[in-house]
């Protein structure tokens, strides 16, 4: 069946044909939040700087979100160039009192993944307690099983 289009509308339709590949790519991709969790034991966390790298698989960083405690609720600092890439350095500090201790979700990274589950590697580049002294912390990446908002 053929449709008769008004000239203006016909131009609109022609424009609409362009992003077909984009729409197709979007269908097979999935978004997954990765919680970045650090453990500072009984010390207080005032600052952290962590690097995450996609080690294997097809994944790109598409969003950065803050963590759970009030001191780190705002999204961390990051280089916007990291978005749509596979490597990011995130960092945040807080001058709040009190500061969080124990196991803390400091940030969540939003990933766009394709195919098999990618593997991620995290590294602590710096961490400090409230007085600015170096802090030894453990860090882990915890993918959320349920997707976020789409």
């Amino acid at each position, binding site marked *: 069946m053929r449709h008769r289009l008004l000239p203006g509308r016909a131009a609109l339709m022609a424009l609409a044909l362009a992003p077909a590949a984009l729409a197709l790519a979007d269908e097979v991709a999935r978004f997954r939040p990765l919680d970045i969790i650090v453990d500072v034991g009984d010390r207080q966390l005032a600052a952290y700087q962590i690097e995450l790298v996609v080690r294997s698989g097809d994944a790109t960083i*598409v969003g950065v979100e803050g963590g759970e405690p009030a001191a780190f609720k705002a999204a961390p600092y990051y280089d916007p160039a990291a978005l749509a890439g596979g490597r990011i350095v995130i960092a945040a500090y807080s001058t709040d009192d009190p500061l969080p201790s124990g196991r803390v979700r400091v940030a969540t990274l939003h990933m766009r993944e394709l195919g098999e589950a990618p593997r991620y590697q995290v590294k602590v580049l710096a961490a400090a307690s409230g007085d600015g002294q170096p802090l030894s912390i453990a860090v882990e990446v915890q993918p959320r099983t349920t997707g976020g908002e*789409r």
Partner: protein
Amino acid sequence: MAPSDERELVARANQGDAAAFEELYRRHRDWVVGLAWRFVGNRDDALDVLQETFAALFDRFPGFALTSSLRGYLYPVVKHRCISLLRKRRRVVAIDEARTARGDLAGELAWQPDPPGEFAEIISALPAEQREVVRLRFALDLKLEEIAQALAIPTGTVKSRLHNALKVLLKVV
């Protein structure tokens, strides 16, 4: 996707071509200062933000990779500079602290008046994250990919927010 000539300019700037740096400034100057004015509401502050934004952009070279359009890249830079400036003057309006980028510590920025008339009230009643998508889409005329980059959220999330906002906007009017 960035227009190919914009990519070309970025590529030339990455090679140290002074004319390309200048052209990037000339092309985006009015947009950046206009956007800054939307956030801060006065010319002097908007001009400060203009200078800081381009200083930050130039610092990205060499090695600057354009993933979407330059406007998509510049939006968060302008916004964060405005927040930093307003924070110093304690004029930031705290509305919504959920899912905001660093610099949005105090929530959504004040935005100079939305379109007058029937839409103003409807837009102000939208949740903050939908409101920002609507402004980027209709007031700044950004594409989905550009909004995703500007807000550092997935394209699917932009679609979802836009879809929900449109349902409200088009039902009421």
